[in-house]
């Protein structure tokens, strides 16, 4: 019996699971081998401890190793859970903050409805500003609703004055174009035609100058704005119709 064989059988020896011959050989070896005797002592101490735990615990320890490992796992998990609970308590403030962005279906629906209403109002105001002729009854820009005024100041809709200025620029561009066409044809006209054209153009220009001055003094005067728009259209028509003579 050598040390290797002895240590291999020590566990079974201590459990009395060996036959007499091998058991006698191990006893003889332990008597002369200090190292193997030490190992045997350690194994015996472990066994003694297990037997002590057994008597102290109310439940009966399972006889097999697999059940023992399960019990050890349960002990470990029971010790880990308190630690996890402490970690969760530290994370809760962050989750509370993140919870703000977690909206319910009702909240999302309400938000979408509000966005839709605001978009519709903006569209209606925009279309109204574009299509409704201004100053039909001579009232001034004070007839603009408060909502429209607020939107105008925010730059979301065009105010009547801004719309008028934009239209005047467009008309002036068209007038410049037709003026060039007239200048190109003018040399072919006879004297009477030229004089008649100049006379009428001068008349219209005087009217334009009058309304321009009125609007500089009172930009809110929608009637004058309407008349200026009409006069500029007349000028454009005059130039266009004479451009093909």
């Amino acid at each position: 019996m050598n040390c290797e064989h002895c240590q291999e059988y020590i566990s079974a020896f201590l459990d009395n699971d060996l036959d007499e011959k091998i058991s006698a050989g191990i006893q003889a070896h332990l008597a002369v081998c200090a190292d193997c005797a030490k190992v045997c002592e350690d194994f015996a101490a472990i066994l003694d401890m297990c037997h002590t735990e057994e008597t102290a615990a109310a439940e009966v320890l399972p006889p097999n190793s697999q059940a023992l490992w399960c019990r050890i796992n349960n002990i470990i998990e029971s010790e880990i859970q308190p630690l996890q609970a402490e970690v969760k308590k530290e994370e809760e403030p962050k989750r509370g903050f993140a919870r703000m962005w977690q909206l319910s279906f009702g909240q999302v629906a309400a938000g979408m409805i509000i966005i839709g209403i605001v978009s519709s109002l903006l569209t209606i105001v925009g279309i109204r500003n574009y299509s409704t002729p201004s100053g039909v009854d001579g009232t001034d820009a004070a007839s603009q609703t408060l909502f429209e005024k607020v939107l105008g100041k925010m730059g979301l809709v065009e105010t009547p004055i801004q719309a008028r200025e934009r239209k005047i620029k467009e008309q002036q561009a068209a007038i410049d174009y037709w003026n060039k066409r007239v200048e190109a044809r003018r040399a072919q006209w006879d004297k009477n035609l030229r004089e008649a054209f100049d006379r009428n153009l001068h008349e219209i220009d005087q009217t334009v100058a009058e309304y321009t001055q009125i609007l500089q003094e009172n930009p809110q005067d929608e009637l004058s704005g309407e008349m200026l728009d009409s006069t500029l259209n007349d000028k454009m028509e005059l130039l266009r119709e004479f451009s093909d003579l």
Partner: protein
Amino acid sequence: MFSLGLGKKTTILLWLSVVFFFAAPGTEILAQKKFSKTYPASKNVRLQLTNRTGTVNVEGWNRDEISISAYMEAPAANIVPQNLSGTIVINLIKDNEGRGEVGNVNFSIKVPYTTMVDIETRIGNLTVNSINSGLVRAHISSEGDITLTNISAAAVSAENVMGDIFFDGEIRREGNYRFASNKGAINIRIPFESSFKLMATAPSTRSISLGAFSGGNMTFIGDGRRVVGKSSDGSATITVTNQRGTIAFIRR
């Protein structure tokens, strides 16, 4: 032979002077060319005429034909009327495109009473008389007077830059009537029982005379620059704008 006792030479000279006296105006007549043509017309015929310079007179008559007469001053314009699916189209601008100087052309046209009349000229007067149809439009691009008399139409439009506009006629229910000028007088003579909504604007002179049509239903707004309101039940629509002239309503 009748004789005053004058010599032969003197007699000849006298006769020659008489001949030249009567022949001189004829040079002008000879210089004016005349265009004349007649077209058969249905009841719903439309006359669409665009003149360059000159007058246009249109008169309704009780015949199913359109008679066009034009007197052309030198240099004579080309006139090429077209009959397009019941519309007589005369466009002197297009017919004389590219030509420099073209003389005045003065039209005298007779049309069936029910003809829709659409006439315009760049310079000159327009006159329409005795029409009972769906449309009368008279447009002068610059200066000239517009005279519409004995008119019964569902839509009337008369506009010029400088000149007077006179309308004498009926206001049909749900009709549309528009008169616009930059300078001149606009006078409208209509029956007292006419039913219309009115918007009349004379921003410069503020001279808007409603005559028999003034009353509680008419309101002056914009410091007297505009009148809005209605007469009777406000069926038709009348819009009158005179930038630097006057507006007057006269009871027919």
